[in-house]
């Protein structure tokens, strides 16, 4: 994996106004980088702001504050049409619900070719058709599917269509917002395998948003854990699962049920109590060991570090 930054997110904020004196801080000061060719997993419970983060990055929402640099260029703020077009080609999204994210009145051909048409990527109708056929094959469907409508497909197949649509404009970066949570277990594995294979072939970078932690661990290189609009921990996938530091991460990990009855019988769940934190100062994001970041105060930082050294020496 290269260390070239593809995406830099700096202090991203997304606040929603609800009435006069009520502001929901869905995303509240996120800062992280996504490297070229990696899969960055974003996990957290519903309402923690992980989907909002994805949607703000790709401009489905206008962010309240902060910057998103894609290859060093800010993608937030005012843009003219041609700038937007250029940016839209590089960044695409796969949505959670394959039932509502495909227009039921369009054929598969038109759904997939929409991006091709907008960006003028096909010179004539022949080429357009050929491109769509190729994309369908890439995602494991076939030509005959092109003239059908979305309702004729199963959930897994629709998610493949969603992936084909995202790939149509040759993006470098794909935001996948819970792409498998609406699918059956056996179909989930198919879609995840497909995404991994495409990443290898096309050198894609993914932001993978999910709440299924075991699948996130499987697909991601690095993982960020979100809690109430903030990142509380960020580390390499292995490291995060082996040595979780933040109490919230620990409680989240301890809550995943594993398909192992004996383990389950002996499982001890850790309950997260937000009041256990040191409140003497504003917590900051600090690097506790190389590439492992935790949201903590300076006092907690020392404690976590000590704890960590102990576990390493043991």
């Amino acid at each position: 994996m290269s260390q070239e930054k593809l995406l830099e997110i700096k202090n991203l904020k997304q606040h929603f106004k609800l009435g006069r004196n009520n502001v929901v801080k869905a995303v509240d000061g996120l800062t992280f980088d996504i490297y070229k060719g990696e899969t960055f997993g974003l996990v957290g419970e519903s309402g923690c702001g992980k989907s909002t983060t994805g949607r703000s990055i790709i401009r489905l929402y206008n962010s309240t504050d902060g910057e998103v640099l894609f290859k060093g260029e800010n993608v937030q703020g005012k843009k003219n049409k041609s700038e937007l077009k250029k940016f839209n080609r590089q960044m695409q999204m796969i949505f959670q619900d394959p039932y509502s994210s495909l227009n039921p009145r369009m054929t598969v051909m038109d759904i997939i070719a929409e991006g091709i048409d907008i960006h003028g990527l096909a010179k004539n109708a022949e080429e357009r058709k050929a491109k769509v056929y190729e994309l369908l094959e890439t995602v494991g469907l076939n030509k005959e599917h092109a003239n059908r409508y979305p309702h004729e497909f199963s959930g897994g197949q629709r998610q493949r269509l969603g992936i084909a649509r995202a790939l149509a404009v040759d993006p470098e970066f794909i935001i996948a917002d819970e792409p498998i949570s609406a699918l059956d277990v056996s179909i989930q594995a198919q879609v995840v395998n497909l995404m991994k294979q495409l990443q290898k072939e096309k050198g894609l970078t993914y932001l993978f948003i999910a709440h299924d932690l075991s699948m996130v661990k499987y697909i991601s290189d690095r993982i960020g854990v979100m809690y109430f609009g903030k990142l509380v921990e960020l580390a390499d996938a292995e490291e995060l699962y082996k040595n979780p530091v933040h109490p919230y991460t620990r409680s989240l990990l301890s809550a995943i049920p594993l398909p192992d009855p004996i383990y389950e019988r002996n499982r001890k769940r850790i309950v997260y109590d937000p009041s256990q934190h040191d409140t003497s100062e504003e917590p900051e994001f600090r690097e506790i060991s190389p590439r492992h970041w935790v949201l903590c105060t300076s006092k907690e930082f020392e404690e976590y570090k000590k704890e960590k050294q102990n576990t390493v020496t043991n």
Partner: protein
Amino acid sequence: MEKILEVKDLKVSFKTHGGEVQAVRGVTFDLHKGETLAIVGESGSGKSVTTKTLMGLLPKPHGFVKEGSITFDNKDITKLKESELQKIRGKDISMIFQDPMTSLNPTMKVGTQIMEGLIKHQNMGKAEAREKAIELMNLVQIPNPEARMKQYPHQFSGGMRQRVVIAIALACNPRVLIADEPTTALDVTIQAQILELMKDIQKKVDTSIIFITHDLGVVANVADRVAVMYAGKIVEIGTVDEVFYNPKHPYTWGLLGSMPTLESDEEELFAIPGTPPDLIAPPKGDAFAARNKFALEIDFVEQPPMFKVSDTHYAATWLLHEDAPKVEPPESVKKRIESMDHSEEATR
């Protein structure tokens, strides 16, 4: 063990424009007193239809029981009239639905919804029912029940709503509790709370639970026995340990293999290829044969019977026939089982 419910060769079909959908194609199982039986399977495998039939909740007239019986209290549920069913439903057999957002009435106060069953089935007066409702809300650990009773469902979070649904289901001390994906719509930490709560309550009130889910992690957590369903049939049934540590059916292997473990670092997940068969015209032989790389010739001709593995463990695959070639589970599944055996030693 005392049998509380006996399902025998149950077949349920739906009439549609395209033809008759054979959603359940011969399901047989017993439910013992005080146990939790998990039914796992993909969408369309017939797990929800099976339990809806147990409750007499099939959409009539296009959904109907074609064959088989469900014996409860020496009565065949499939033959009961609606009025007789109403006496059982919610009293002896009750249900927790998947989506707590839609299974409560949004225009009724939560307290009234809990009291409804008590007044109807237990002939309680209003005051008595109110007291019992508060007791139930305490049981499912809803804080401040007196105030919460007067609120409406939209004022509750997802996890709290599911607690209300559980309280309603438990109101009349049912002997059988059917939980249809009760935690699928919830977050992991809330899911863990609800599962703990259900296990806790089961100990207190000694009810039998049929737990429907597609999450094998949840199964490992709650179940005593597991039935794996595919295309309207039970393909493997046994105690949790038997099914997780000694699975025999290739479909069970596929299910276990398609979930990544937290330790695993394989390049590719073991995915089951293809999609489930169309149940309007189910295949002649084993319904799983077309997706099964271990399929034998006979799989395409004749449906396998249930082969006995142990007194409690059965699987419907020709691979267990004495003439069948010896087939080992795929590498990834074996590795997973080995890694789990390892954890077993560590905890002992």
